[in-house]
């Protein structure tokens, strides 16, 4: 039993923190809000050079063969600076989809370039309806010749306007779970991008309109009608990635609040000496530390294939959603007026955490799943063995 990071993991955290502190300053983040692409490709490639992109990609495909814990460590650092970029879209969502599809040709084709950063990818699931299973997929991939034709609209595609290739979930059968994955180059004729403006201006998403988009046969990733399991894997890892980023947002917000409460004076004394502020900060600390435990337990459980991995993911997402909301929100309250200004960085973390809250399952969705896992007996071994 060891809940602490290993030496390697701590070195990884240090590496990520140094890079992001230097390259992903508040000024950079703010500049990227206005940037249509929304991220710095050079920085992204540098992450590839530093092996940050390929952490969870198997060694035979050019990655480090590590896992979700390592990705979470880097993502927590990204949350701390509200990093804008297609990291999650590519090396968490798309890479997981490809790996989980079991399609070795696709792995060989996409994973190595994802690991270097030469290739950016995204993942397109949502349409009109909100949900995280195949039941939300209305878009049909109609067989046509050797290939398929896709029509319809995908929404909230992360960094979809710049991704080289988008992994699209489309319906290919009659059952509600009969979905398949397709790798669609963004430049494919018939595919148009409608950029969205999100509350978190650094969270670039878009709608992708498919107007009878023709795909070759090898666009299919994995088996026909076999996409549901891959989608499920994407949701699990997407949720934990969101937890890690929200955790970073929370930790940074807590640190800024404590620092401010020590120096800001009202009524002749530091505001941190008032119980109203002190106790708020204590609750923020409690929430943040518990969010840490939940996030890394879930990340470890996924990596270890633990029997309670799904449970742990739903525990983490529903818990961290609320913890990060509380911490990032209360940070504004602790700061008062200045916390509400554009110039101050707090809102970057507040908005990022809020952006991630509904994604890959909101609190209610995951609470329901927690209960389902418990009723199915898929819980941790020892403690609940009755």
């Amino acid at each position, binding site marked *: 039993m060891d809940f602490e990071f290993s030496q390697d993991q701590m070195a990884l955290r240090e590496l990520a923190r140094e890079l992001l502190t230097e390259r992903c300053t508040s000024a950079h983040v703010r500049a990227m809000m206005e940037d249509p692409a929304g991220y710095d490709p050079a920085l992204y490639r540098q992450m590839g050079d530093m092996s940050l992109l390929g952490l969870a990609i198997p060694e035979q495909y050019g990655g480090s063969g590590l896992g979700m814990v390592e990705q979470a460590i880097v993502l927590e650092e990204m949350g701390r600076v509200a990093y804008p970029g297609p990291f999650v879209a590519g090396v968490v969502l798309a890479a997981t989809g490809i790996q989980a599809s079991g399609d070795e040709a696709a792995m060989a084709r996409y994973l190595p370039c994802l690991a270097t950063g030469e290739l950016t990818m995204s993942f397109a699931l*949502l349409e*009109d*309806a*909100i*949900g995280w299973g195949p*039941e*939300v997929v209305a878009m049909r991939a109609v067989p046509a010749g050797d290939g398929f034709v896709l029509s319809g609209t995908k*929404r*909230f595609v992360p960094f979809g306007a710049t991704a080289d290739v988008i992994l699209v979930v489309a319906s290919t059968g009659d059952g509600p779970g009969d979905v398949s994955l397709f790798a669609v180059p963004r430049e494919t004729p018939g595919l148009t991008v*409608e*950029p*969205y*403006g*999100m*509350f*978190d*201006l650094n969270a670039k*998403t*878009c*709608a992708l309109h498919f107007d009878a988009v023709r795909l070759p046969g090898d666009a299919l990733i994995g088996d026909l009608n076999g996409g549901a399991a891959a989608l499920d894997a994407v949701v699990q890892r997407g949720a934990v990635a969101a937890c890690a980023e929200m955790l970073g947002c929370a930790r940074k917000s807590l640190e800024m609040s404590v620092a401010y409460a020590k120096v800001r*004076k*009202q*009524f*002749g*004394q530091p*505001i941190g000496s*008032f119980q*109203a*502020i002190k106790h708020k900060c204590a609750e923020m600390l409690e929430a943040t530390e518990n969010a840490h435990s939940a996030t890394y337990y879930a990340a470890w459980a996924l990596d270890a294939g633990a029997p309670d991995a799904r449970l742990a993911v739903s525990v983490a997402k529903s818990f961290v959603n609320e913890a990060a*909301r509380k911490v990032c*929100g209360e940070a*504004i*309250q602790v700061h*008062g*007026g200045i*916390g*509400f*200004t*554009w*110039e*101050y960085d*707090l*809102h970057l973390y*507040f*908005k990022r955490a*809020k*952006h991630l*809250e*509904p*994604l890959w399952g*909101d*609190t*209610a*969705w995951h609470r329901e799943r927690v209960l389902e896992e418990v009723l199915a007996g898929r819980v941790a071994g020892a403690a609940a063995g009755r």
Partner: protein
Amino acid sequence: MDLYYTREDEEFRARVRAWLEANLPREKLETLEQQRAWHRAVYEAGFIGMGWPVEYGGRAARPMEQAIVGEEFARVNAPPTLNGLGIAIVGPTLIHHGTEAQKRRFLKPMLTADEIWCQLYSEPNAGSDLASLRTRAELVGDHFVINGQKVWTSGAHRADWGLMLARTDPDAPKHLGISCILVDMHAPGVEVRPLRQLSGSNEFSEVFFTDVRVPAEHLVGELNAGWQIAQTTLSYERGGNTLSRVSRQLALFHRLLQVASRLERDGRRAIDDPVVRQKLGQMYTEIEVLRYGSLRILSRLEKGIRPGPESSITKLYYSEMDKRHQELVLEILGPYGQLIEGAPSAYALQDGVAYGEPGSWAYGFAYSRAGTIYAGSSEIQKNILGERVLGLPKELRADRMQAHPATQAQAGGEGGA
């Protein structure tokens, strides 16, 4: 107890509705001139400064009539009139504390919005602890010379005049030595810099004063007696008209119902999801309780009972409720609630009328975060309730220990962080 509106009230409401139907602008008011025209029309209909005495251009209207106007205007999402702070706060302050000359000079153009006012209170180091403000007003001959900085000034960029609190005796203990002064925002040395909020918009400004000269007759009340005046104006700010808030929350709620009836979540319409229904039921419940509480305050106002510090309950409840409700909105709408550009119209916040400021769900969400900070943070409101309403002992505070004993009582509820 009788919670029906009187027949008189109902007739008045009908008149307001009829007027709105006939006069509500169909287009967004883009320019200041259009806004002034709308303001003047509302004023001439008798719906602005209604509570002011007749001799100063008001209508001496009953509180219930004022509330009905607020409620009905919010109900149809009418464009705001101008000079809200001036008419709600500066005007009453002048009526109570101003000289006859000041009243004659300033009140009428305030009401007609020919002159727009702002309130120059907060400073970077004087937020909740307003009494620690540092902006100096030095009496030199027959003029004050003002130097300093104000912040969180609402509408400063278009204001003609400002009601300022400034330190006129730097040697007096903190709550003494402050005066209340009327400042020409066009005077040399006044510089307004817009302040951008986390919402991305800039409703507030910073204002810098460098050797700004203000004639001594623009002092309101006695020299160094500004703190008491400020307490009065703060209580105007905290009293106020909550029925219009109820209308605004209801408008948001009804739009949310519409969207929830269309939006599909987890295989069914959001409105059919029992968990979503609980949230909607909770929201409506809390809005109704705000409405009941507002009626209770109004019914006391109708009897001539002015709300005291207990009106902090309304501010505290409303602002915390709004924060909670905006969170619930975003929970129900998922990523659609966070779209500020590109939202499909079926899921966007639109108030059903073309002439308001539609904004976005996310904008309302962002703004709810300010509600528990400005005009006395929730912490300050709780101090007021604890100390002034419940009579709990004041906390030990550094500034109280060094201050002159006489100031202790006045520091009152402004305690807290």
